[in-house]
């Protein structure tokens, strides 16, 4: 199993991450071990096993629709890297 550079680039883009060449090389190496070990996933017979997606088999509970206090504006914006007096600010949405 070999992952091509394109696939790796798409995956890192989907995680909004840019790997350096060195990191790409290291990840390729890690993936070789991984895919070797992961062959077992395709081999073992999981029968009718259902995907579990969680450690708990319990059920959720519901909350009453009652308003609770929100954060004071100043606290909401406190940790923001860029904000004006009322909103978070983000750079230009559209490229080019």
């Amino acid at each position, binding site marked *: 199993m070999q*992952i091509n550079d394109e*696939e*790796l680039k*798409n*995956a*890192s*883009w*989907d*995680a*909004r*991450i*840019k*790997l*350096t060449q060195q*990191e790409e090389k*290291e*990840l390729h190496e*890690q*993936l070789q*071990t*991984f895919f070797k*070990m*992961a062959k*077992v*996933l*395709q081999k*073992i017979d*999981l029968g009718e*096993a*259902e*995907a*579990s*997606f*969680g*450690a*708990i088999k*319990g059920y*959720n*509970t519901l909350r009453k629709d009652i308003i609770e206090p929100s*954060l004071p504006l100043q*606290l909401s914006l*406190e*940790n*923001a*890297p*860029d904000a004006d007096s009322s909103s*978070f600010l*983000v*750079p*230009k*949405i*559209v*490229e080019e």
Partner: protein
Amino acid sequence: MNNRSYSARQLKEQIKNKSLSPQELSSSIISLCNSVQEKYNAFISIDPDIISKEIEALFDDKLKVGDNAPLFGFSYSLGDNIATSGYVTTCASKMLSTYKPPLDAHVFLKLKENGAIIIGKTNMEEFGIGCSGESSYFKGVKNPWNTKHTAGNGAAAAVLTGVVNFSLASDVRGELRQAASYCGVFALKPTYGRISRRGLLDSASSLENIGLMAGNTMDLAAALTAVAGHDPHDVTSLRSEAPDYISLLEGNSKELQAAVPENWQDAPYLEDELKDIFQGQLKKLEELGIKIHFVQLPHFQHSSLTATIISAVEAFSNLANYDGVRFGYRAEGRHLQEMYTLTRSEGFSSKLKKFLTFGALVSSAKYYNDYFLKAQKLRSVITKELEDCLQRYDLLLTPTTPFRAPGPGILPGREELPDPAGYYTAAANLAGLPALTYPLHTKGLPYGLQFTGKKEDELTLLKAALLLENENTLAFPNFDFNNQGV
């Protein structure tokens, strides 16, 4: 003053009869902290003012902290991925190096109620993923047994050096237990949901728990009693109330039946010396009346692979909010998407960047069914296998890690997917079962013995640990910080 003399119970006496002043106590604790920090880099934040204030409160007769509070005189630390509004909470990441969360974690509030004092926030792998000492923005934690090796995390080093009575840290695929094993201390990852995850900055919500470390079983039990129990604000927390573990530990234990996977020696990188030590322990346990049964657990060996895939995909999603908009590090970008990419590429460690890309890859449309979905199915199979086994036996016995603390001469020397350190530990995370590591002190670096138990049955694990502890004399190193001025 020797650090191990800080037994909380002794301290309580000293405070009660005032043979110690708050200033004396504060300054000795603070200087001990500083020494541990200087030598091992165990902490990310230590705030002497907070420590002094908490200690003064202990002595205050107007009783902010009642001396009948269950953890009166106990000191502890929190892993830096557990939210505290008073300290920055960094997850050992550049991304959060100045982040102050708006709320305190459930466990922090519980421990405050119970009278324990917080000493600081401990160092760890970035976002608590892994235990090999490579990804902390604040550099790795040195192992007090041998500083050329990693301690796994600061929580274990803090407990080992005695600067705290117990510490709390997270466990995604076994990190808490692995670090405890590397440092030769006790650790318990309780049943999923036994301790509320409110305020845990988690990377993999379905696997990750807050767990405890301590220098002995009774301290572990005392801390567990304080923080365990249902939290209505965490819908994944167990509905059942947690018992008072301390009082239950006093009762007699029945004869325990323990299972051992018959292929336990198949772990990659398993150290030869550990094979002998583990077999020796099995013999000892039999002498203590624990019956050993070798069992077949055909899928157990795939736990780490399974948990690595699942944790990577969940981390890919859980950490997507680190986008430089509402909090944390931001890099300048010409437009939104470039800002995202630069922020995340500069704010996360190289190791985490690769791990998140891996998570994106195995959940992408092309690989989703064959890897992510398969892993979730395998998770069900492993869970069933363990649950069936634990219906017949009281606990499952394995080494905690296949090797001692990574460092020179101990493999593996580099990152791997799946994580070989999780070979024995990851199954408990997949199945949400409680697991405890008991320290095995040898001449050099320590090993660990792991008990995995039935859902919600932390008590049996604590009983087994106590049984062993009462029979063995643990050889904790005697840390002498006197020349640093205590």
